[in-house]
């Protein structure tokens, strides 16, 4: 009699300890979430997640670099010849038709961060050259030569007026 009681007690105790450990562990894990979340970008930074660009000031053939989420974005006003040249090929190492990379062919909008190691490429002649490791991009931001594996990324953007875009909103 006494023995079975003792056994029951042990079983009950072990069960209780298990349940409590699970409940307590879940709570401790949940308590970590606010701490982790606090290291994510704060609300004031998220509010700067969109950048408005006025295109009227960019001459044909000219390029403006604007900051979007702390990164440079190249806005290139392409001429007829440049557009034609870009439509002739699908680029090099990472083939992609030019049409898929633009919303309106005269405006190219790409993130100016080399897809290799994150340097900012320079506009040199036709296309861009990254001086860190020598990657070369064409006027559609497509990788032609060098260690970079991918084309320059196209950020989400949309035209809100004929000559105004918002980067950050698709």
């Amino acid at each position, binding site marked *: 009699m006494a023995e079975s009681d003792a056994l029951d007690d042990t079983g009950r105790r072990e069960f209780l300890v298990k349940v409590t450990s699970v409940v*307590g562990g879940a709570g401790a894990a949940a308590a970590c979430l*606010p*701490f982790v*979340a*606090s*290291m*994510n970008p*704060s*609300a*004031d*930074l998220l509010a700067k997640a969109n950048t408005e660009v006025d295109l009227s000031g960019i001459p044909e053939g000219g390029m403006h670099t604007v900051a979007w989420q702390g990164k440079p974005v190249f806005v290139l006003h392409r001429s007829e010849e440049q557009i034609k040249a870009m439509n002739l090929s699908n680029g090099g190492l990472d083939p992609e038709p030019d049409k898929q990379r633009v919303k309106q062919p005269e405006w190219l909008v790409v993130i100016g961060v080399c897809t290799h190691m994150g340097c900012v490429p320079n506009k040199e002649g036709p296309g861009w050259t990254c001086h860190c490791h020598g990657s070369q991009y064409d006027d559609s931001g497509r990788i032609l030569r060098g260690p970079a594996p991918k084309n320059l990324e196209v950020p989400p953007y949309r035209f809100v007026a004929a000559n105004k875009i918002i980067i950050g909103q698709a």
Partner: protein
Amino acid sequence: MANKIIQWIDRRFPLTSFVKHELTGYPTPRNLSYWWNFGFLAGIVLTLQVVTGIFLAMHYKPDASVAFDSIQHIMRDVNYGWLLRFMHSTGASAFFLVIYIHMARTLYYGSYRAPRELMWWTGQGLLLLLMATAFMGYLLPWGQMSFWGATVITNLFRATPFIGDQVVVWLRGDYAVGDDTLTRFFALHYLFPFLIIAGVVVHLVALHTVRSSNPSGIDLADKDNIPFHPYFTSKDFFGLGVFLIAYFTVVFFFPHSMIEAENNIPANPMVTPNHIVPEWYFLPFYAILRSVPNMVGGVAAMFLSVMIFAFMPFLDRSRIPGGARYRPVYRVLFFIFMLDILVLGYVGYYPPTSQTIAIGQVATFYYFGSFLLLPFISKAEDQWLFKKGLPPNIIALIESEAIEKRILPQRRRRGDIT
């Protein structure tokens, strides 16, 4: 697998024997009451403060021109920044509450007496570090109360003999509390908790040498000791649950009660608020400062009022074990002393009037008097109790424990027990 890993470690580091010695095998008096939970709770609050503090420091800027703004940034824009900040500001009060109860328990049960003097003194050092940390942390929000609190407290050091004014300027790094003061207070506010952790380690090593005291005040024989784990781990965790309910009730529902209204106004060196009060945990000491009409005397009295606790092991002359449990006079003294601290806190909270000054002076007088008269009172109580005869249950307890301690080595030698 787990066993193999532990074996691997054990060959290189005494993990199992450490856990056994300090936790699963660590003998703890079985009669500890809930008042013995507060040391563990103090460790938990320290951890909470360090962790929330580190995450707050990722967003806070210790520069007088933007410090207040960065607090608003934390409160409004940082994800869960309000939670981190309220946990930290409430945690400061929780820390003092827990520590004061921990100290009151030590005083009531006479746990400061031999052989635990070093525990009491390391605890005293920890209290001073805690006070310094809290005081410097209070400047960081750079509100009106922060600024003027720091101004008043650094001015206390004017009472230093001969070089008072230089010391004040040296502490501030400026002629008034300013940007340099803020930056150094931030650096030290981040450093001191690690000194506290080091102090806690010393405190714990001392504890595991002399073992826990217990309500009877008698060092118990082996039969009355039980392993710390699982008995006191389960009890400590239950106490932690109760503590967290109280703590988070304040954090979520009354967090602003821990932040003075004036501290929501940015620091302005040109305008002093009408009524400067320190945080509640400094009030009794602040009242003592104000009760002495002379500046140097007041500062000296305030420092002494904190430091005088260190003399307790010498002041208590009684031969009866423990604290208030078997000593009616000491018990009465203890409760009047607690009441006296509350009176001082009340006086410290209100602006000085002739009435509160008078009450404060009486309370200050009693505060020091109870320490200074303790040697004589405890001696007299001791003689009276021995003449009257101790209560039979304590005599029985002392005798049975003595017998137990005498037989035990014999039984161990015979091989009855291991």
